[in-house]
């Protein structure tokens, strides 16, 4: 019992310790590493970070109030030194409305996606780990939800319960959860046959413990990537709801709503439509780039 075997030469240990993930500092270091390793991920991260900072500091950053109507400005609504992105048909400053609108979209979209991830993860773990009838019921109900054209599902529910931030979040959560459940179920089906799960069963761990402690941490890679992809889709969905007039009620600045209010005047004052559309696109692209970057980095190992 005296001899101890050091299979790894001492030199290697130090290298490994550098990238240890167990400490929070190590985790940030790792995220930083991943992002700088993939240029596309860096661009995506930068776009998302810019919008997030603008949203957080909106009261200080936005040059004007987003709801302040100034009919005098409508004579010349185009971008100018005072109003960098011009004003809309009511004379409200478009830049300020975008910045405040970022607050809306960056609250609603992540909350909705997070809700979907939580619900979907739980259902997916349950379906994958339990299998059989539980799996059949969860997945068939999910399939049924997915079979509805999404936008019609949104319209039905919002028409019934009214347009509010909470209802929009609920609708998106419900409609995205089945997709996430499917991803998690797939990973679970693979992982539940690994030997370490068998070992956990052999020491008598409960099913819940195995699902959340043994399996879930190993699904975090695909889940994080999917989170950002879905953030992009959800931004579009919120934009569409706003455009259809069932988004957040005015005068809350909402990017989709801004497009909707202005699109009748697209041939007269095109910037009022194009600028908020570009804002939506930039957020979607940013989220997608970040997801791609994370996927590349995770494939690199």
């Amino acid at each position: 019992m005296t001899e101890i075997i050091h299979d790894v030469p001492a030199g290697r240990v130090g290298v490994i310790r550098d990238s240890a993930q167990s400490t929070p500092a190590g985790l940030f270091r790792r995220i930083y590493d991943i992002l700088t390793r993939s240029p596309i991920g860096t661009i995506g991260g930068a776009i998302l970070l810019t919008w997030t900072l603008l949203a957080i500091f909106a009261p200080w950053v936005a040059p004007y109030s987003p709801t302040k109507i100034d009919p005098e400005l409508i004579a010349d609504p185009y971008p100018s030194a005072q109003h960098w992105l011009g004003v809309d048909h009511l004379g409200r400053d478009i830049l300020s409305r975008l910045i405040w609108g970022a607050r809306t979209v960056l609250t609603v979209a992540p909350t909705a996606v997070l809700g979907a991830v939580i619900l979907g993860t739980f259902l997916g773990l349950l379906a994958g780990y339990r299998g059989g009838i539980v799996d059949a019921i969860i997945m068939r109900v999910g399939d049924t939800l997915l079979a509805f054209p999404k936008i019609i599902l949104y319209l039905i529910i919002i028409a019934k319960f009214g347009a509010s931030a909470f209802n929009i979040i609920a609708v998106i959560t419900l409609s995205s959860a089945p997709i996430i459940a499917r991803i998690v179920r797939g990973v679970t089906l693979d992982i539940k046959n690994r030997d370490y799960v068998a070992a956990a069963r052999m020491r008598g761990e409960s099913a819940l413990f195995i699902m959340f402690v043994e399996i879930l941490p190993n699904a975090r890679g695909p889940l994080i990537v999917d989170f950002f992809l879905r953030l992009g889709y959800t931004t579009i969905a919120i934009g569409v709801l706003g455009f259809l007039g069932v988004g957040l009620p005015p005068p809350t600045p909402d990017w989709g709503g801004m497009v909707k209010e202005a699109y009748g005047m697209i041939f007269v004052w095109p910037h009022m439509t194009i600028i908020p559309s570009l804002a939506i696109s930039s957020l979607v692209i940013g989220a997608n780039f970040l997801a791609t970057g994370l996927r590349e980095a995770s494939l690199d190992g």
Partner: protein
Amino acid sequence: MAEILAFEHVSIAYDGRAGRQIILNDVSFSIGAGEALGLVGESGCGKSTVALATMRYLPRGMSVIEGHIRVEGRDTAGLSDQELSRIRGNRIAMVYQDPMSSLNPVMPIGKQLMEVPLLHGETDEKAAFSRAVQMLEEVRLPAAEAMMERYPHQLSGGQQQRVVIAMALMAEPALLIMDEPTTGLDVTIEAAILELVRDLRAKFGTAILFISHNLGTVARICDRIGVLYAGRMVETGQIGTVFRGPAHPYTRGLLGALPRLSGGGRRGKLRPIEGTIGAGDRSRIGCAFVPRCSFAVRHECEERPIAMVDLGGDHLARCARLDAIRASVKDEHDTVATAAGSNAPIVLRVRKLSKEYKLSSFFGGEKKGVVRAVTDVDLDARAGETLAIVGESGCGKSTLARIVSGLLAGTSGEVKLGETDLTKLKVDDRPPEIRRQIQMVFQNPDSTLNPSHSIAYALSRPLRMLRNLASGDAKAEVSSLLAQVRLPAEMAERMPHQLSGGQRQRVAIARALAGNPELVVADEPVSALDVSVQAAILNLLGELLEQSQLGLVLISHDLALVRHMADWVAVMYLGRVVEYGPVEQVFSPPFHPYTEALLRAAPTPDPDAAPPSAALEGMMPSPTEIIVGCAFASRCPSRIAGLCDTTPPPVRQFGDHRIACHLDLGGQVPVAPGGLTEMRSSTS
């Protein structure tokens, strides 16, 4: 003798994010016409890079930075792409480990074979067809013409590999590169393929570069051997010379680490090579083996490059301490024999155990047949002793292990731990006390530990669950568990990916021991590890067994390992135990014909061993087939027509040793016919 392939001081480097890494360092060897060179070494030693470099198939970022590779006298570096592709198809052919990666799954194999001559100038389809049929006959595939129509998935693994070999030989290459061609195959299939390669080589005069981690297979095929370590050739020579008198400490280590079939004492100490190839070892100025070498002396071994020393008779070794080594130890194998299979108390009693799966059609209705994975198995596992279960893949040994450990439920029969019947008690339903008593060690070191959790987690959970330790006590106990498997206590903080395969397997053993079990089921615990690491793990298991009353059920396909470790052996074939008894008796006559075939097929690293006379023909029948007579009858070389295939074999008993066979094996006491279940009368 014309040189077919020559490596002249070849160095290959990989330029990646982390800078330049040397993969091969000053490697030289040559293969003459019709010669077979075996290239051996542990994983990561650069064996496969040699093969890829020969074909000039180096992955992106890798390049030859020094030296020349000549194929039939021409330097491959100067060849144009057309010349290169002509050489690849016509002069050099390659056979990889996984035949499915070389076969197109959506094309009949005949068409794939015909492509070879058609691509290389043959225009007549008929001629190509008859060449293909002829070649399939050469590789001894039955009904060659019908075989032409088959798709790869319709063939067994062994047959697929034969097709790949046929395809490689279609162009009559001067050199055949085989990269671990039999690694995924069962021993009897492997033996048949090796025999085939040897015959084809004699017939076609093809030179062979045979890459393998298995010294036994190399001994069977090759004339010469090259030993690679960390990208350097450390020893080359004639097979006989090197195996009888290995000069380099690494070669000596590889040979000393192997358990042998030819006895040598049960659980005697093997000589593992401590440690693993370190990241920095490839770029050492001196010898790369220094950190693991017990003969290393700083100024001689580390400070300057070591040259190949000519030992005469075509035997070269790259070592500065050859004289010192020669002067030291002679005998590499300790033979510390311990007392053989006594009659220790029985911990686990398996009687008439069967496991069936019902196959149902897609809609769950009508039954499509029954898979009999395990049929009427009788076994005892004893305290402090090792029961080994051997057999080829598909024989039901893993199913049996999983029933005992509760990951599967048996269909009928009994599995008794003390007085508790566990047959249908899956692990989730077992009482905690029973769960503690039976634990398991799994095969694959990559999936045995959860990659998301630390080693401390892997060891403290079972302590808390099985021994009800509070989290503080469990933490303290973790380091003593680690010490038990000879790992430093700091290991606890690491994540599984920071450990080598051998270390992970040690942790897995510690985890199994955490609850102080009475029985540990180990399913191929070392088969995924390199030879040198394997020896260390086997030594560890041996020590643990000696120190305790632990019973071990060892599942393995490796007869040499079983010979080394076991007290009792059960040989399984198609779900049935065909032979059972104390290890010395099972490994000496009388044999069940299947045991005999397995023993003949097992590759031994002994250049003097007679080649196996006749490899076992055919394949194991499907477990869905209903077997009336003896399960082995369809492949048995000495079957008695009209008896073996119609009547279940009687159990012949020689004391504790039992063989289920119709053959008159001499000196036996036949029990009334009725299958293995009759064994029960004698033990219970």
